[in-house]
């Protein structure tokens, strides 16, 4: 080593020595800077996370509310269904009552012949025709003779109806109608056919049958009832406007009859519902 080198070495050593401490400090500072940067990133992450956490908790709350709303809707629909079922049950009960009452009054379908004026009109007991004496019904009484076979179909159908075997009853009514399209009980058979669909909730089919009674048998004693039930089916199918018009017509055209009263009640229900 040269002499002249000594100072250099000394300075270098000194520098190294001097620098050693700052280097340590420097490293620490570096670490600090890094840590600070990490913290900064961490804080930013946390802020984002905080937003996410709140959003998540709120989303959960939102979901809860949505489920509540859905549940509320389901519960209300259930209730509507329950009430409708109840209404229908009471309608069945009334229907069966009417059938039983009719049978008790000795209703036997007219055997045949215009000479038979004592036979009750083959409508149901609540028909408008019931109020009129049998002699006042030349059209019914004057109907052509009914074949025995199809008459059986009709009776059987009524019996099945009484037993709540609606599909079987419907088939029998249909059989009667096919065998006897212009028969004296055709309007009744078609009306009851409509009823079998109606009680099963097949409103489209029911409506078609009721509409046919109205169009094909304008003089039938089943006109008012058919129109009423047509209105019901229209309402069940959601066509409130047409239903209202139909029921309105029943109310006006058959004022005083049961059908008109029932139409009034249904109209009130429709109005209450729409409020």
């Amino acid at each position: 080593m040269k002499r002249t080198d000594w100072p250099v070495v000394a300075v270098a050593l000194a520098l190294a020595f001097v620098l050693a401490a700052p280097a340590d400090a420097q490293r620490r500072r570096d670490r600090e800077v890094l840590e600070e940067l990490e913290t900064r990133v961490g804080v930013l992450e946390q802020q984002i996370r905080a937003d996410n956490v709140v959003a998540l908790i709120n989303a959960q709350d939102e979901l809860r509310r949505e489920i509540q709303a859905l549940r509320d809707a389901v519960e209300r629909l259930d209730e509507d269904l329950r009430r409708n079922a109840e209404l229908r049950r009471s309608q069945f009960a009334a229907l069966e009552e009417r059938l039983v009452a009719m049978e008790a009054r000795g209703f036997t379908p007219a055997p045949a012949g215009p000479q038979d004026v004592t036979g009750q009109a083959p409508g149901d007991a609540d028909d408008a025709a019931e109020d009129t004496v049998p002699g006042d019904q030349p059209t019914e009484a004057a109907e052509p003779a009914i074949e025995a076979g199809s008459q059986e179909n009709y009776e059987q159908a009524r019996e099945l109806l009484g037993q709540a075997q609606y599909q079987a009853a419907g088939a029998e009514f249909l059989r009667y109608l096919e065998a006897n399209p212009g028969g004296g009980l055709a309007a009744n058979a078609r009306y009851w056919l409509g009823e079998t669909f109606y009680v099963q909730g097949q409103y489209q089919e029911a409506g078609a049958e009721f509409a046919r009674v109205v169009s094909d048998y304008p003089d039938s004693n089943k006109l008012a009832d058919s129109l009423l039930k047509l209105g019901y089916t229209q309402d069940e199918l959601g066509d409130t406007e047409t239903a209202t018009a139909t029921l309105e017509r029943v109310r006006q055209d058959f004022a005083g009859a049961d059908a008109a009263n029932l139409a009034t009640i249904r109209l009130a229900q429709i109005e209450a519902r729409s409020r």
Partner: protein
Amino acid sequence: MKLRNILGGRASPPSRRTRRPPPQVLCLAVLALLPLAASAQLDIVITRSTQRAIPIAVVPFEWRVTLGLPYDFAEIVEADLARTGQFAPMGRETMITRPTSFSEMRLTNWRIMDVEAVLVGHVSGSEANPTVEFELVDVYAGESLLVYRLQSSRDAFRATAHRIADLVYEQLTGARGMFSTRLAYVQVTPGREEFRLIVADADGQNPIVVLRSTDPIMSPSWSPDGAWLAYVSFEAGHAEVFVQEVATGQRRPLSPDRNSASAPAWSPDGRFLAVARNVNANSDIYIYPVDGGSPQRLTRHSATETEPEFSPDGDRVYFTSDRGIGPQVYVMPSRGGRAQRVSFTGSYNARPRLQPDRNQMAVVHQQDGRFRIGLMDLRDESLRLLTDGPLDESPSFAPNGRALIFGAGTTAGRGLGVYFIDSGVMRLLRAPEGILREPAWGPHEN
């Protein structure tokens, strides 16, 4: 208190002829400010009677033994009857005579006044333990409807008067009287510095503080025998249910755990309490045996289930749940099973209370931000709103079902609202200081 019907009362009320328009009930007038003013509650009429009130005369009872100041039984009886809105007592100053028994009465005098029934009576025996005899007379039929002799005592004069009012009310309306019952409610002092659980007579008089706390007190509920109160206290830092014997003040926590518990309701046999218990921020209904033992969880749903109420036969529990979009009333078997929704009108029906012996239920109904007390028919689910709100809550039926008390937040002020179902009269009970809330009407106690 001894009770003896001397002649036996007739069941049918007297004839109610309408000869003149219904007497007007004072509107917004302070009516019953009794001498106990310092502790007494103020009683204000908010809505008037919609029905014709029965004109009646309550003649001051004659004291036949009096030494000091005679106690005015008739005044209390008259006030009780008038409060319901179903009766229109005639003023004493208009009474021409003051008979003390049926035999002294000249019926024509009363018929002229258009009074239908007259109550007369007298007090005899010792001054400390007098015998009160009274008779209710049907003026038009000219016959006695009710003759009673009651043994009273100096510290039971008010009770005796309420008892007489009960008997008259039952005779004339057919419904058992509710004047001998008690109320429990919470008084919150100004600044909410103190919460007081108070037991008072049905007319709001004789308020007695049965519990004081600097922490909130909520939801008092009477046991079916009227001996106990269940309520919620926050003294442990969270809602906790306590039961307390009214007469002795002895109390114990029903639910001593970390979970908050609230809305206690007694089973009709007094052996169980239905309670809303909050576990992990989920409130469900639990059935607690009153004598201790582990609670049975009744509802299991993530929504809020609270405000239970047993059916009169104890077989079902009605409660509020917000499993739908707003709180609605549901019912389920008290041994567990499927919950069925009961209320469908509008989006807020809460806090069901069943009307005794009727198919009716009182609820808090909210619409357009107004909270009102409604009466729901359980058969057809129709809802009749009884009060105007806008902040009415906590309905509770009188045991005869003919009146209900509730926490009234009316535009005329806050307090305890009392609604008389037959007359449509609503009254407001207020304290000289603080707010009265969360009332519970106690059972018949005799």
